[in-house]
């Protein structure tokens, strides 16, 4: 009968904290917390150069030509911009204001009635053609891209307020998709002109 009294002893759990600490430190070291952020773009699909190309006719009026030289000088249409024109003062930099005006002003680019949410709204057909020299620094190139994106985002806000009465980032997924479709991020990234080959 003495046998019945023999209970299995409790497992000593004082080392549990140490084990948990070890696991914790392991996870702290091997994992990262940072989220990936970036500027999304869609490249044009590859066209075989040997195939016959049917170039899309784009009205000259609807194209804003942005050209970045290797020294960081920027030509917008026929105007010269410097790196100072990429810096924002208030809501806009000079480049983003110019791009925004190009999209939003009725006399700058053609507007086309586009159906959004069952109604027709006038949306700009404007597109930005971005050219950069092969020697241009990526930092400058991305700054230019940033300002152009800013202009497009503001224009999307305008259309969004017209259609849904609120800004683009406050829309739900279906609504923002409709706006994205109506106002595409029309930034054409042409291949850089290689001066050395000419």
């Amino acid at each position, binding site marked *: 009968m003495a046998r019945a009294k023999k209970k299995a002893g409790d497992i000593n759990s004082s080392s549990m904290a140490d084990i948990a600490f070890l*696991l914790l430190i392991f996870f702290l070291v091997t*994992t990262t917390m940072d989220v*990936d*952020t970036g500027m999304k773009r869609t490249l044009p699909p590859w066209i075989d150069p040997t195939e016959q190309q049917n170039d899309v006719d784009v009205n000259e009026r609807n194209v804003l030509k942005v050209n970045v030289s290797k020294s960081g000088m920027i030509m917008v249409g026929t105007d010269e911009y410097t790196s100072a024109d990429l810096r*924002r003062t208030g809501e806009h930099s000079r480049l983003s204001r110019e791009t925004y005006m190009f999209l939003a002003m009725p006399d700058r680019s053609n507007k086309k009635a586009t159906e959004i949410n069952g109604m027709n709204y006038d949306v700009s057909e404007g597109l930005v053609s971005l050219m950069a020299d*092969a*020697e241009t620094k*990526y930092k400058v*190139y991305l700054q230019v891209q940033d300002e152009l994106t800013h202009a497009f*985002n503001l224009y999307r806000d305008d259309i969004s307020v017209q259609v849904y009465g609120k800004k683009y980032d406050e829309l739900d997924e279906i609504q923002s998709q409709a706006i994205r479709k109506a106002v595409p991020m029309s930034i054409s990234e042409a291949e850089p002109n290689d001066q050395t080959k000419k």
Partner: protein
Amino acid sequence: MAKKGKREVPAMSTSSLPDIVFMLLFFFMAATTMREVDPLVTVQMPEAHEITELDKKNLVNIWMGKPLNAAAGEDALKIQLNDQTRDVEDIREFISATTVTKGVGPRDIVVNLRVDQGATVGKLTAVKQELRKADAISIAYAAKATNN
């Protein structure tokens, strides 16, 4: 006097310590993600305002920057795919291998271009042309938020 000597502060109970640590552990497990590959090139990310958070799902990284073991004065940029430094020509093969392992089409993956801010547009274009050939046309220019 004997009584006074006996009055001691009782030891703090540490029995809840494992619970606290486990709670911390679970928090970190949920809030962080595994570091998949070690960078072999140094990339100084450019700064931008108009950036969005990129969904980790279907995100593929391509690094372009100076190799970590570069000799002084040498400033040729290298491309890193997964955990190897490779050439531009290897991108197509890399994309097709990635689509197989992820089980999605090339247009469903988002290629995150982590390019050093000192790189040239010419190099970037070479990468973009290869991506177009691989039909991986959805890309993102990795950038961090700017303070001004």
